[in-house]
């Protein structure tokens, strides 16, 4: 299992648009990717579950992946989050 912690930097938090991007990206990998926030963990490929995190700016999230391309998946998602999802 691969795990990394990231911080949401977008002013509007993990809202519909970034969540769409994240879910799309997670869906491209074979590994099971999950996102964790204080005890809640959700499937990264589900936009609905991502939204239920209601992760505002400054929230720390753990990205976890298990599977053949786990490291690539976590790296790619970390990059996306740190690039502010290409938004704002």
């Amino acid at each position: 299992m691969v795990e990394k912690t990231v911080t949401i930097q977008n002013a509007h938090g993990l809202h519909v648009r970034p969540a769409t991007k994240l879910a799309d990206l997670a869906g491209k990998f074979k590994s099971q990717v999950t996102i964790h926030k204080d005890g809640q963990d959700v499937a990264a490929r589900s936009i609905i579950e991502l939204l239920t995190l209601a992760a505002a700016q400054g929230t720390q999230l753990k990205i976890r992946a298990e599977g053949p391309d786990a490291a690539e998946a976590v790296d790619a998602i970390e990059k996306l989050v740190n690039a502010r999802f290409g938004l704002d």
Partner: protein
Amino acid sequence: MQILKGTPVSPGIVIGEAFLLDLEEYRMPRRAVEPEQIEQEVARFQTAVDAVVGEITEDVRRLKAAMPEDDLHKIFEGHAAIVNDLVPSVVDSIRKYRFTPEHAVSKRVRTIVKQLTSRDDPSGLAARFVVDFNDVEKRLLRALFGERGGLKGGANGKSVVFAKDLTPSQTIGLDRTKILGFVTEFGGRTSHTAILARAHGIPAVVGIADVTRDVSGGDTVIVDGTKGIVIVEPDGETLKKYRALEKNFISFERRTADEMRSQPSETRDGIAIALLANIERPEEAATARDYGAGGIGLFRTEFLYFDPRNLPTEKEQFEKYRQVLKSMDGRPVTIRALDIGADKEVSGITAQERNPFLGCRGIRLLFERMDLFRTQLRAILRASAFGKVRLMFPMVSTLDEIKQAKAIVADVREELDAEGVSFDPEMPVGIMIEVPSAAIAADILCTEAEFLSIGTNDLVQYVMAVDRVNEKIAPLYQPAHPAVLRLIRSVIDAGARAERPVSMCGEMSGDPLFTALLLGFGLRSFSAVPSALPEVKKVLRSVSIPEARQIAQDALALPDAHQVVEYLTEKTRRIIPELF
């Protein structure tokens, strides 16, 4: 042909096509799906999903074309992703629990919404997502219910809106120029729908139980807002009769407006009376002028806040305020600070409260949301450099609140001064009188407030302890109750003694029934929906101040609202017989 009877709340006769709102309120078919029909239902759901995704794609394309620089379309792309993401769980519950697709969709979305709203949400993010999920649910249900909704093309200029009830947030998004009439299942004379309809001179009938079940989108309907009758799919003869009535009514209204426009607003004995307009969108300033308004007595600013995802910037607000000042061409414009809470909900700003009418609303909410408050004050002050602006605070109940609000205004003024931004340093700051404590202690509040405006809609509800949107107790909502009349008179007296201008901007000031009475109490400034002004002017031009005083004295001697109304009707009928 089906004839339905309800409560008439806004006069006039129109013939149009039924247009159903409130799809999420439709009865959810909860019956279990027969086992052999399960796959058929799954297929029906899949068709609806395809239709909705297609519809969203079309919206995205349209938005991109219309506003290429705007990112709004991306939100809708997200909605398509949400729809697709819902599919597995919905199909699962159709198969496993034999739910109908409608029920399965609603249940799934309700669960998500519950999850979002069940915990602390300091950022307001979860509340905003609720709007997205509700939107997606609505689209799916609409697709599943098919044509019955008839919402697809939007209102078309012949539309009569049918709904269970209309909330302020729903109606604020409607294009009113495309709506001929309103019919709702709930509500009374003081419901939001009624006030809105009268404000725009749109005929309306409320309180017809189950009407949204009896009418289908596209049905031909006649609305008689004077008698409270709605006729669905009328026969040829009825239609002919009502076409003639429709024409007559329009001509009476227009005649009064034309007749009054050029007449001075003064009593028979020559006392000048200010006739001002209540508006809730900048475009309505033109209508106000057309109806002969001498200024804007109440410019509601809630319209700026209906989309919680795009709260108005200072510049956007400033432009809107300036637009109104420009239309009014030097005439006074009273801008009311944001007044939400109670029945005016804005998701992400207003909270769910047990007792919202007694809750955090009006100025109370502004103190909680200093960010919104200061932005609005900056915009209003900046606009004050371009015309005669007066600033008004809603829902004030104590002297301290006025002091506090004025301190914030002073602070914002200093800030603008430091930035070298110009504004009117003399801009008057006043308050609404709509809470009993403020009305009873009006003399004390006058030490800080530079003007008063009596908001009778809320004042009556608080004095009578009657929720104005609860139709069960609607008969107890009595603007003509002796307690209300005494209180109004004492506020007007207090203002006169303190030499503070007093205006009235509630429903009562636009009702010709009360015009002479209010004049008799000493009221010299009336603010009402533009379409009500010609009739009010007609009454005030026909009475002298001594006559009005006599009417006030006689009315105050009567023991109950019923007799007061009867007495005033008798007096007013002599002036405008066509109204009764």
